[in-house]
C-alpha cells in the first residue's frame, strides 16, 4: 500500500515537472517581457537593471531552477498587466471557481448516478427512454450554447434567475468570500452550475447505466437474488458497488475537466473566477498568469488522479491484497 502510494506520488511529481517545463518555456516563446513592461522610453540601462531584477540574465537552467523553486512555494512572479503578485490574483479568484465547480460536480455526480441507476433498472419504460433521448442532447450541445439557452429561458423570458455575476458574497475567511450563504449568491450559481455540469451529468449517467446493465447480468447478482435478497438490496447494495469501480475513474477525470472547462461557463455568465482571469491574461499576453493557471490545472488533475487510485483501493478488495500483501 505504502509502496504503491509512493510510486504514484513519484509519477505525479514527474507529471508536474513536465508541465512546469512547458509553463516555463512559455516565457521564451512569447517575446521579451522586458520590452513590454518598460515601454519605449526606457534606456538600455533600465532594461538591463530590470533584466537582472527579474533574473533574466541568468542561464536557462538557473532560470528554470528558480522558476521551480518559487512555483513550489506558489510564487509565480508579478502579473505583467496588473503588476500584482500572480498568486494573489489567483487566490482572490479561486473561491468563485471552486464553488462553481464543486456545486456543478455534486449536481452532475448525484443526478448522473441516480438517473443512471433508474434508466438501468427501469429499462424500457417511457420515462427511461425519454431520459436517454434527452441525454443525447446534453452530450451533443456545446457548453456555451447550453449556457446561452438557459440564460434566454430562465433569465430573459421567465426572469426567475440572474443572467450573470456571482450575486452577493460574504467573507468566510480572510481569503474566501462565499456566495453560497446568500440568497442572491445561491440564485446566481444555479444556471452556471447546470451549464457546467450538464455534459458531465449525461456522461456519468450513460456510463452508470451501461455498467449497471453489465453487472445485473452477472452470476453473483443472480445468486444474490436466489439467496432471497430483495430487489432493493440486490440493486442498490450489490450491483451499485460493482458498478462504481469503473465509474469512479471517469468521475475523477471529469471533476478535473469541470475545473478546466469552467473557462467557457465563466465567460458566458461573467463569473468572476480563475477561468475569466485566464481569458483576460491571454488577451494581454500576461505570461506569468497563464503559466500559473497551467500549473494549477495540472495540479488539480494530478491530485484527483491520485485520489481516484486510492479510492480504487478502498472499493476493490482484490487490489488491496495484491498490492499490500506482496
Amino acid at each position, binding site marked *: 500500500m505504502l509502496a504503491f502510494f509512493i510510486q504514484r506520488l513519484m509519477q505525479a511529481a514527474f507529471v508536474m515537472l513536465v508541465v512546469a517545463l512547458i509553463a516555463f518555456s512559455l516565457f521564451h516563446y512569447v517575446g521579451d517581457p522586458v520590452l513590454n513592461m518598460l515601454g519605449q522610453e526606457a534606456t538600455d540601462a533600465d532594461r538591463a537593471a530590470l533584466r537582472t531584477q527579474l533574473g533574466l540574465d541568468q542561464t536557462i537552467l538557473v532560470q528554470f531552477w528558480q522558476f521551480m523553486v518559487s512555483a513550489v512555494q506558489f510564487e509565480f512572479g508579478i502579473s505583467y498587466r496588473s503588476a500584482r503578485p500572480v498568486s494573489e490574483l489567483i487566490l482572490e479568484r479561486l473561491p468563485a471557481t471552486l464553488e462553481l465547480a464543486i456545486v456543478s460536480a455534486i449536481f452532475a455526480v448525484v443526478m448522473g448516478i441516480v438517473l443512471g441507476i433508474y434508466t438501468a433498472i427501469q429499462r424500457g419504460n417511457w420515462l427511461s427512454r425519454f431520459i436517454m433521448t434527452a441525454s443525447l442532447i446534453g452530450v451533443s450541445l456545446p457548453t456555451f450554447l447550453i449556457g446561452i439557452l438557459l440564460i434566454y429561458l430562465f433569465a430573459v423570458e421567465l426572469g426567475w434567475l440572474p443572467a450573470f455575476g456571482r450575486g452577493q458574497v460574504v467573507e468566510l475567511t480572510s481569503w474566501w468570500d462565499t456566495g453560497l450563504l446568500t440568497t442572491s449568491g445561491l440564485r446566481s450559481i444555479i444556471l452556471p452550475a447546470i451549464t457546467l455540469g450538464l455534459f458531465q451529468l449525461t456522461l456519468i449517467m450513460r456510463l452508470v447505466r451501461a455498467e449497471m446493465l453489465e453487472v445485473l447480468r*452477472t452470476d453473483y447478482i443472480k*445468486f444474490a437474488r436466489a*439467496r432471497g*435478497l430483495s430487489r432493493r438490496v440486490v440493486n442498490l447494495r450489490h450491483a451499485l458497488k460493482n458498478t462504481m*469501480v469503473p465509474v469512479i475513474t471517469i468521475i475523477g477525470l471529469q471533476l478535473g475537466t469541470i475545473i478546466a472547462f469552467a473557462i467557457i461557463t465563466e465567460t458566458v455568465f461573467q463569473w468572476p473566477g480563475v477561468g475569466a482571469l485566464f481569458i483576460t491574461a491571454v488577451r494581454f499576453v500576461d505570461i506569468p498568469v497563464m503559466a500559473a493557471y497551467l500549473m494549477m490545472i495540472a495540479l488539480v488533475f494530478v491530485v484527483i488522479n491520485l485520489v481516484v487510485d486510492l479510492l480504487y483501493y478502498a472499493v476493490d478488495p482484490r487490489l488491496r491484497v495484491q498490492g499490500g500483501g506482496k
Partner: protein
Amino acid sequence: MSLTQNSAERPDTASQREDTTAVLSVRNLRVEFPNRHGTLVALDDISFDIAPGEILGVVGESGAGKSMTGNAVIQLLEPPGHIAAGEVRLSGERIDNLSEEDFVPLRGRRIGMIFQDPLTSLNPLFSIGDQLVETIRAHLPLNEKKARAKALDLLREVGIPAPETRLDSYPHQFSGGMRQRVVIALALAAEPELIIADEPTTALDVSVQAQILALLKKVCAERGAAVMLVTHDMGVIAETANRVAVMYAGRLIEIGPVDDVIQRPQHPYTEGLMASIPGLGARRERLYQIEGAMPRLAAIPSGCAFNPRCPHAADRCRQERPSLLATSQGQAACWLHDPVNPVARRPLQETSS
C-alpha cells in the same frame, strides 16, 4: 465406486409419490420465450415430483432444458422467458402464480439454489462474512452478532478450516472448491426444504468434485432437504441421486430409480446416452455415438422429438407425441412402452466403421 452398496439404503421413493407429501411437484410445466419470429417452447409438458429427503438427478445434453427447469421453479428465468402453462407446487402450495414480490421471501428461505461456477457466484467486493450475514438476516430474525455466530457455524459445517479467520476474507482469497463450500453454506443458510443445485461440480477439479458432492449429500440429508441436482455428468448422478430424470429438447423423456435407468434404460435416447459414457460399460475400441444432434428449439420435429435419431422409429413416432408411459420401474415417453399397441423394437446394431 459404491454404487450397489448405496442402492440398498435408498428408500424406494418412486412408489410412494403423492402430490401432498412431495416437497416439489411440477405438473405439465411449459416455458415459452416469445420473440420476433414467434414463440420458442423451451420446456414442454414437464411433470415430476421430489419427495422429502430425496435427490432427483436431472440429466441431458446442453440445451435440453435442465437448468431452465431449475430456473423456472425458483422463478429466475431470463426475460422474456416465462411459465406459460402448468403448475409448480412447493409442499403442496402452488408457487408458479406468485408475483415477484411474493416470491422473494421463498428464495433462500424455502428454495435454495447453487450455481455452476463458484468463481462468479460470489460478489467479489463483499467479504464472505458480509454475504452470509446479509443472507441469514434476510430470512431469520437475528441481530448482527447472532447472525455472525450462525455464519461461523455454517462455515464450520461446510468444512472451511478456521472459519473465525476466514469470515472477513473476500471471495478471491478462496480456492474454487472452498468457494463452492461457501456457496453451499449460503444456499443452506436459512434451511430451505428444497435445494436446486445447477451443475454444482462442473467447474471444479475432479478430486474436489467428490468432496463437494459428499458435502452436499451430507448437509441435505442432515436437514432432510430435497435436492434437484442438475448435471450432464452421469457419474455424478450415479454417485448421488436416488432417482433420475432424463431430458431431451425441452421434454422429460424418462424418469425412474437411478440404478434402473443406468443399467436398464427404457428410452432409446437414454440407452444411447448410457452407451456413450466412457468407463461405465465395458471398455470399447470406440465410444458409441448417437447419430445426429439434438434439434434446435425452433425446429423440433412432430411426434417424438427424438424420432429422427431413433433406431426404432416407426410412423407413429413421427406423428404422435408419446406421454410418459409406465415401464418396469419408472416411466418413459416412448411408444415402445405403449401398453396396448407397442412399437416394435428393432435389434440394436453396433455402429460399424
